[in-house]
């Protein structure tokens, strides 16, 4: 009994239990919510054939009925139990729209590209944001601060898909500086994946515009947060004491101000890392980039329930894990905080 009590009072154990419970609730909610969405894959397919191709209803209905070997008429609880049973075995099921394609195959095909592009973007924009934010804070009230803060506020207010479209239209179409068609996608036709210069160069050139879009659309937020956090830290007593002690400006900036100002941003960064699993349906669609966001967008549009469920679940798990990691590492970054009240 005491052992059980001790186990439940163990911070890591309770966090794991809570995480599993959250995942279960999200999986359940996702299952029912996606089915509450109006229209099912068959109806949507019929509608598309009629409205887009002028196909007769009879032909469209025949084609749709035959193409979808899915039973949407089974009782919901049966479908749910079947889904949960498979999920416990780590099986996300098969795509409705591409019979015979396991959802896990789709995830493994799409997810690396999103992690690659969004991961690099977050690292770049976070690094750039903290540097610009710190400089702005140190030069508060000056020209640099005004310019950077204004640009950062503007950029963080513009939706990322709009920045993507603007980049494409201005740099690609109006100025003609980049070949729009050649930069679409994740990799050029004929380029064999592998650890070689040609492949690495190719994937970076394809990811350039999505990365640029993510960076431009998020760097403003990081800059403003870092500026605000740095300003707060600069007013702390320990910084004044450090100055009074005659420590070098460099040491105060990095060891006293920078490190402490970064702490609040660290939580946001880990959350962002979690959300990166979801990618961005709009950005990936604009650049025809085969990431998980693109797959999610397509699956929502066509009501491919298994794919939608799997992607939502992966995002949830990623956010939970990222939070968990953040909690664990926070104590390392800030010795004042102890995990589980140790």
């Amino acid at each position, binding site marked *: 009994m005491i052992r059980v009590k001790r186990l439940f009072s163990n911070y890591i154990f309770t966090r794991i239990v809570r995480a599993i419970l959250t995942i279960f609730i999200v999986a359940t909610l996702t299952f029912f919510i996606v089915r509450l969405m109006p*229209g099912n894959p068959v*109806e*949507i397919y*019929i*509608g598309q054939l*009629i*409205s*887009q*191709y*002028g196909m*007769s*209803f*009879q032909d469209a*209905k*025949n084609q749709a*009925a*035959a*193409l*979808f*070997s899915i039973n949407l008429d089974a009782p919901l609880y049966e479908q749910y139990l079947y889904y949960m049973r498979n999920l416990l075995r780590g099986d996300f099921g098969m*795509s409705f*729209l*591409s*019979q*015979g*394609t396991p959802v896990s*195959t*789709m995830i493994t*095909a799409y997810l690396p590209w999103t992690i690659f592009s969004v991961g690099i973007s977050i690292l770049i924009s976070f690094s750039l944001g903290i540097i610009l934010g710190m400089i702005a804070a140190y030069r508060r009230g000056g020209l640099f601060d005004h310019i950077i803060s204004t640009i950062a506020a503007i950029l963080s207010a513009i939706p990322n898909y709009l920045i993507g479209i603007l980049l494409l*239209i201005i*740099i690609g*179409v109006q100025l*003609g*500086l*980049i*070949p*729009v*068609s*050649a*930069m*679409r*996608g*994740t*990799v*050029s*036709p004929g380029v064999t994946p592998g650890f070689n210069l040609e492949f690495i*160069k190719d994937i*970076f*050139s394809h990811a*350039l515009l999505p990365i*640029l879009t993510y960076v431009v659309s998020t760097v403003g937020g990081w800059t403003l947060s870092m500026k605000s956090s740095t300003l707060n830290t600069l007013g702390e007593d320990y910084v004044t004491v450090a100055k009074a002690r005659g420590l070098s400006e460099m040491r105060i900036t990095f060891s006293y101000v920078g490190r402490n100002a970064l702490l609040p941003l660290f939580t946001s960064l880990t959350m962002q890392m979690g959300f990166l699993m979801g990618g961005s349906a709009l950005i990936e*669609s*604009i*650049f*025809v*980039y*085969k990431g998980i966001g693109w*797959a999610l967008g*397509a699956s929502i*549009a066509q009501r491919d329930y298994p794919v939608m469920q799997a992607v939502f679940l992966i995002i949830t798990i990623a956010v939970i894990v990222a939070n968990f990691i953040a909690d664990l590492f926070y104590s390392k970054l800030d010795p004042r905080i102890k995990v589980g009240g140790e």
Partner: protein
Amino acid sequence: MSKRFLAGLISIILVVTLTPLAFAAGEFHGAWPYSPPPVGHYNTYATNNISLGMYWDLMEQPLAMYLWADAKWMPLLATKWSLNRNTNTFRVFLRKGVKWQDGKTFTAKDVVTTFYLGYLYNWAVWRYVDKVTPVDDYTVDFHMGNPAAPMVIERYILRTEIRSDAVYGKYASQVIGLLGQGKTNESEEMKKLRAEFDQFRPEKIVGTGPFILDPKNLTESEATLTKFNGYWDAEKIKFDTIKVYNGETPVVTPLVLSKEVDYATHGFPPATEKQFVQLGIRIIRPPIYSGPAIYFNHNIYPFNIKEVRQAIAYAVKKEENAFVSLGDSAKRQIYMTGLSDNLVPQWISQPVLKRLNKYDYNPDLAAKILTNLGFKKGPDGIWVTDKGTKMEYELLVPAEYADWSAAAENAAEQLTKFGIKTTVRGITYSQFPTEIYQGRFQMAINGWGAAHPHAHFSYYADLITYNYPSGMGPGMNFPLVQTTKSVGKVDLNQLTTQSAEGYDLLKQKKIVEKLALAFNELLPIVPLWERYGNNPALDGVRVTGWPKEGDPIYKNSPYADNFVTIMILNGTLKPVSK
């Protein structure tokens, strides 16, 4: 610093991507949306296959393609065909000397395989045909248990893309075996086979057409088709490669603007179209044979009164509605028959045409009709029915369809001005059909007509698809047995079915005329305009040879028998460099 950064960035971009700027000689660039692997695959029977829409005919070729203006077929894998009315058999003679892209010889077996696998997928042809038999290596008989109009059966048979027996034969023979045992596609065995076949994933498409799609040349961004030198009519094909860019309108637009696409069938908004024209890109406007109409919920009074629907038709200036919705790519319905004005000359005689009401804009007449019904205009300018209810309605529209949304807004504005207060409610396109099927609407903007040369399909779309006989719900609930002034008592459901039955085309035309007159009088729906494509065609950059505007080839429906595909096959389109 920022200048240096920008310059550096641009330099990097240019260095890493300069090579793909050049395009190979003899290249045609098109665009079509597709799903790349692992979702996309090469089983051209199953959903999400990578058949590339209009470019599919260049890989897996059909028996023939249709020239709509001439009402004639262009033979491809078939050389001729005939219908034996005594034995109810449609016989197709196949082209000799045709090779598949894997080197095998094309024979009747391939045709048989194609259609029996189609049985597994409830292909419409099997509503009429009950047996497909090879007579010899180059002759196939289609026996009809339920004889259909030649135009209908021809279309179902000749327009089908023929698949390779070497690729699909294993499954087709299982279908034939099960049919031999008396199993239908409702049987468990057949369903099991279909589920198994759905998961069949050939390594690539093997066709008889002039272009090969090597999976290595396909990414999520583009698919490159290369010329098949063993094609039976190879000397007519002037292009070495065809590049098909993946994507829907928003992602294809920048490619068209940067002149990297020679032709696209996507629906571009009028503002984008203007930009294309400013850049010197030509716009081709082929008829789509369908468009938006005002649908009524006939359960709601007074939409069940034909005079009210007629008044609404008079109260809307259809030319204006067409122009604000899609610019020059929308043309008002002239004859208001429920059939495309482009198909009217083939189906309706001059004397009948003269009897049709064009419903030209006439708000005074509309007001007179309503007044005669006992309706009155209230002090707020809104009509009140004889039962005392105000004429205030909601007009439902799929929000994502920009042209239909514009049509809805304009129609609502015009109707409100006339005194029928109309409010537009946009709902997501995926929910829209369900709302209509379930009859959860008052008025709605929905499609009329169909891209099929036989009038039967248009009337099916107008009268049945969103009406109670479809079995999907009450729909608009328009009673199909009606008494008319023009043609007396009619059963529109029966007439629609009869319009495609039997071999007598003249008899079918008489039925279609009856349907046209009844539709014109009853107006179960009010067609607003017919949609025409606004297909950008880039002349002189990579491709040349586009026929002038008005050429009959442009009467072809771009989604059914695309004229560009035909012009690539017959050598009309060619590279600028050759």
